[in-house]
């Protein structure tokens, strides 16, 4: 299924160029399951072959991704009232919100090009947690620029052999996601262990 979508989009990008590329990244940034990274790498390769202008494609792609991210941030912001009503009183939610506000810049930048699977949830959380839009867009711009330049650059460097890079990048993204999930699990286990130790010491003290 994803192969069919990728093949269809690659054909259409060849046919319609920058507008279709920008639209694909825009829809992907809004949450549609489209192969954005694959398209950026492929377009880098097409540019190397002289089929497209690399500068034009990079600008249009960046604009599409930024616009899509702004809309998904807006969706999160729109649902803020509902989330506050539902979880606003919960201490876990307040703690998670505070924690996000402290490290939001890192989450926003890294999810643009390294853990792209978490980009949409990050946009929604940023919008829903009242993170400042201007600040979000600044970090979003930094992360998306790295994404376009790094992935597009790899496609450009590998030329017609871009598929091997795309294969590596998609698996590497999965690896980083796995490490992140494992890290969260270990962090939670550590917190839980410390809490248990504290409770035991308190019991012994009394």
């Amino acid at each position, binding site marked *: 299924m994803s192969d069919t979508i990728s093949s269809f989009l690659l054909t259409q990008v060849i*046919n319609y160029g920058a507008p279709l590329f920008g639209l694909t990244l825009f829809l992907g940034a809004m949450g549609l399951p489209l192969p954005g990274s694959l398209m950026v790498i492929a377009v880098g390769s097409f540019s190397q072959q002289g089929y497209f202008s690399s500068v034009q494609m990079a600008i249009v792609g960046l604009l599409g991704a930024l616009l899509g991210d702004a809309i998904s941030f807006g969706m999160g912001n729109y649902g803020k009232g509902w989330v506050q009503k539902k979880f606003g009183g919960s201490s876990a939610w307040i703690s998670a919100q505070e924690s996000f506000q402290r490290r939001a810049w890192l989450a926003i930048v890294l999810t643009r090009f390294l853990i792209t699977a978490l980009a949409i949830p990050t946009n929604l959380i940023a919008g829903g947690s009242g993170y400042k839009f201007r600040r979000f867009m600044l970090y979003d711009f930094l992360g998306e620029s790295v994404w376009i330049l790094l992935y597009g650059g790899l496609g450009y*460097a590998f030329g*017609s*052999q871009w598929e091997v890079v795309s294969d590596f990048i998609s698996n*590497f993204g999965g690896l980083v996601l*796995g490490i992140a*999930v*494992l890290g969260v699990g270990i962090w939670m286990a550590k917190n839980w262990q410390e809490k248990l130790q504290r409770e035991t010491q308190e019991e012994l003290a009394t």
Partner: protein
Amino acid sequence: MTRKRIVTTALILTGIIITVFFGLRAFRAFKHMEGHGPFGGKPPAANQTDVSEIRDWMTVPYVAHMYDVPPKAIFKNLEIHEDNKDEKMSLAQLNEKYYPGQDGVVLAQVQALMQAFQTQGPPPPFPSTPVPAPSAPVAP
């Protein structure tokens, strides 16, 4: 077992499974990458010579650009009447349109054609370019 403990265990197990699965795949992909592109020691060429890099999502004008061959020549050899719709179709779509029920015919034909172009120039179905007759010397 508390709910938090279940979530923590599930996260650690899921993390290990995802890390191992994608780690192995990424390692294999990286090893494969070493022999290609800038790591392969040869700079990527604008005009291709390796016909195995032709894919069925490519269009005829794109293949023509890659291999520096006129698109008309490819359509003519495929015995496909070139029109605007066919130009925008992928090789897979052309295959469906002109060879229904036979997978990969157009792709194989285009690969063979590009190979033939590289080894011996335009293959037989092409009309040979008429050589202009030498003009007679003008009498002084």
